[in-house]
C-alpha cells in the first residue's frame, strides 16, 4: 500500500430543493442525489465500495446492494475528511456520501423535529435551535456590543446570494436590505424570522475517490487541503454557554471551530489570506459573525463591524455562503444542509457557481455546526493538492 495515496472529491450533486417536494421521500431523494453525483464523476454504482449516509448508511448499503462496503459514521461535513482518510489508508477506493430529507417536518404547529431537544433539563424550558443559538448571540452582544443591525446585514447578504441562485428555494425572493430582516417578525430575540434558516426538502451527494481512479472520472477533482473538528459535548443537552471550556487551555465554546480551523490551516500549509471563498454554515445570522472570529478572519469581538462594510458580499474580500445557505438555498433536515456547504465549495473551486461564481476561486473554506450545538467542523478545499 502506498503511503502517498491521495483522495479527491470527484462528484457532487444537489437534487431540486423545495419547501415541499410533491411525492418525494427521503430515500428517493438520496438515491437521486447519489446517481447524480456518480454521473457528475463519470462513475457507476458498481465502482462504489464505501458509503456514508448517516443516520442509515447500513440501510443504504443494503438497499442499493453496495456491500461489501466500507461504512462511514461521521455526521455532516466531517463525513468528507473521514472518507478521504479511509481512501488514503487503503480501506476504500470510491466513497459515496449521500443524504436526503422529505416529509420529515409535518407538524407545523411545532418547530422542525430536528430542532427540538428531549433532554430533561432543556425541553421544559421551551428551547429549540433558534433559542439555543440566540443564547450564544446574546452573550456576544453583551460582551462586545454586537447589534441586531449587524446580524441583519449578514442575513440580507446571504439571502441576496440565494436571490441570484437559480437553484435556491428562495430564488428571486429578494433583494433584501437589512431593514427588511429587522422588520420580519421576532422568533427568538435577537433573531427575527429572516435571521433564521428555513425548512425545506431535498437531497445531495458527494463522491470521493482515490486519485489513481482519476483517469476514469469526468469531473475536475477538488482536493481536501485540511480539516478540523471541534466538539464540546452533545448538542442541545446542556446550556449553550459561550464560556464552556475543557481542561486544556484553548478556545471556549463561543469560539468553537477555532481550534479546528487552526489545525486545518496548519495541515494545508496556507494562511487565512489564501482563502477565496467562505462557504460557512448559516443556521442563524449571528453564526457567520462568530465563525469569522473563531476561524481567525478577524479578532474576538470584531465580527460585527467586519460584516457591516460589505466585506462578506459576493463581490467583497470575504464572500460567504454563496448559494444562499440554509436561509435561502435549502435546509433539508439535519444532514443535507451540512453537506451542501462542501458541495458549494466544490462548485466554487471548479468554477461552476454560475452567477455567484467568485472569480478565480481556488481555495474554499467550508464549515458545519455552531456554538449553539457545541460543535463545529472545518474543511478546506483546493483546486490543487497541497
Amino acid at each position: 500500500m502506498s503511503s502517498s495515496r491521495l483522495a479527491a472529491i470527484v462528484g457532487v450533486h444537489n437534487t431540486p430543493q423545495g419547501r415541499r417536494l410533491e411525492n418525494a421521500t427521503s430515500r428517493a431523494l438520496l438515491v437521486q442525489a447519489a446517481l447524480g453525483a456518480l454521473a457528475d464523476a463519470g462513475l457507476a454504482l458498481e465502482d462504489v465500495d464505501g458509503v456514508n449516509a448517516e443516520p442509515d448508511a447500513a440501510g443504504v448499503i443494503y438497499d442499493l446492494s453496495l456491500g461489501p462496503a466500507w461504512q462511514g459514521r461521521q455526521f455532516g461535513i466531517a463525513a468528507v475528511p473521514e472518507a478521504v482518510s479511509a481512501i488514503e489508508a487503503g480501506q476504500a477506493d470510491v466513497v459515496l456520501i449521500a443524504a436526503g430529507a422529505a416529509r420529515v417536518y409535518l407538524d407545523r404547529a411545532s418547530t422542525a423535529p430536528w430542532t427540538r431537544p428531549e433532554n430533561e433539563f432543556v425541553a421544559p424550558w421551551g428551547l429549540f435551535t433558534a433559542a439555543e443559538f440566540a443564547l450564544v448571540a446574546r452573550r456576544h452582544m453583551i460582551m462586545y456590543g454586537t447589534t441586531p443591525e449587524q446580524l441583519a446585514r449578514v442575513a440580507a447578504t446571504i439571502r441576496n446570494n440565494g436571490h441570484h441562485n437559480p437553484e435556491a428555494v428562495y430564488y428571486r425572493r429578494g433583494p433584501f436590505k437589512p431593514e427588511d430582516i429587522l422588520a420580519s417578525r421576532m422568533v427568538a430575540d435577537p433573531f427575527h424570522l429572516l435571521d433564521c434558516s428555513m425548512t425545506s426538502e431535498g437531497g445531495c451527494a458527494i463522491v470521493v475517490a482515490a486519485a489513481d481512479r482519476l483517469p476514469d472520472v469526468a469531473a475536475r477533482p477538488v482536493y481536501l487541503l485540511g480539516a478540523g473538528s471541534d466538539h464540546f459535548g452533545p448538542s442541545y443537552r446542556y446550556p449553550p454557554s459561550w464560556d464552556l471550556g475543557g481542561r486544556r487551555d484553548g478556545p471556549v465554546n463561543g469560539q468553537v471551530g477555532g481550534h479546528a480551523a487552526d489545525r486545518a490551516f496548519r495541515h494545508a500549509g496556507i494562511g487565512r489570506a489564501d482563502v477565496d471563498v467562505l462557504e460557512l454554515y448559516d443556521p442563524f445570522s449571528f453564526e457567520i459573525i462568530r465563525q469569522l472570529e473563531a476561524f481567525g478572519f478577524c479578532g474576538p469581538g470584531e465580527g460585527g463591524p467586519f460584516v457591516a462594510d460589505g466585506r462578506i458580499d459576493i463581490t467583497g474580500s470575504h464572500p460567504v455562503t454563496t448559494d444562499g445557505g440554509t436561509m435561502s438555498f435549502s435546509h433539508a433536515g439535519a444532514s443535507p444542509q451540512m453537506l451542501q456547504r462542501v458541495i458549494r465549495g466544490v462548485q466554487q473551486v471548479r468554477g461552476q457557481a454560475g452567477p455567484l461564481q467568485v472569480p478565480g476561486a481556488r481555495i474554499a473554506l467550508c464549515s458545519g455546526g455552531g456554538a449553539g450545538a457545541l460543535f463545529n467542523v472545518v474543511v478546506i478545499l483546493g483546486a490543487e493538492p497541497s
Partner: protein
Amino acid sequence: MTGPLAPLAPQHGDLPHAEPGPVTRPFWDGCAAGELRFQRCLRCRAAQFPPAEICRACLGADLAWERSAGVGTLYSWTVVHRPVTPAFEVPYAPAIVDLAEGYQMMTNLIGLPPDAITPGLAVQVEFHETGGGLHLPYFRPRTPS
C-alpha cells in the same frame, strides 16, 4: 405592539419533558419540595450541574446533593415569540443563570416584562407547577431581603 409589555409568567401547559433517571431524580424531587439542588464533589469541592455520575472536574465518584441558595445573575437570555410546541404560551424567556455556588443552569425568566431584562440581572429561584405535575425552577428578579 402598544402599551407596556406584560410581565413574563410561568407556563401552565403539559410541557415536553423527559423522565428523570436515577442520577437526576434527586434534583426533581427537590423541585417538588421547593428546594433547588446541585451536586458537590466531596473530593475537589466543585459544584456540578446538570448532575452526572462522576465529577466533571476531578472525575471523583463521591458526589453529594446540596441545597442551593437559589440566587444568581443572568448570563444570557432570549425571548421566544414562536413556541417550540403549542404547549408553550408566548412570549417566554429561556435563560442561562450563573448560580452563586458556581454553576450554570438553564431556566425561564419570569416576573418582569421582556424589555426590562438586562445583562447581569440579579435573580432568584421560584418554583411553579406546570401541567402534568412538573415542578420547574423558574427565576425572577431578586427582591432585596
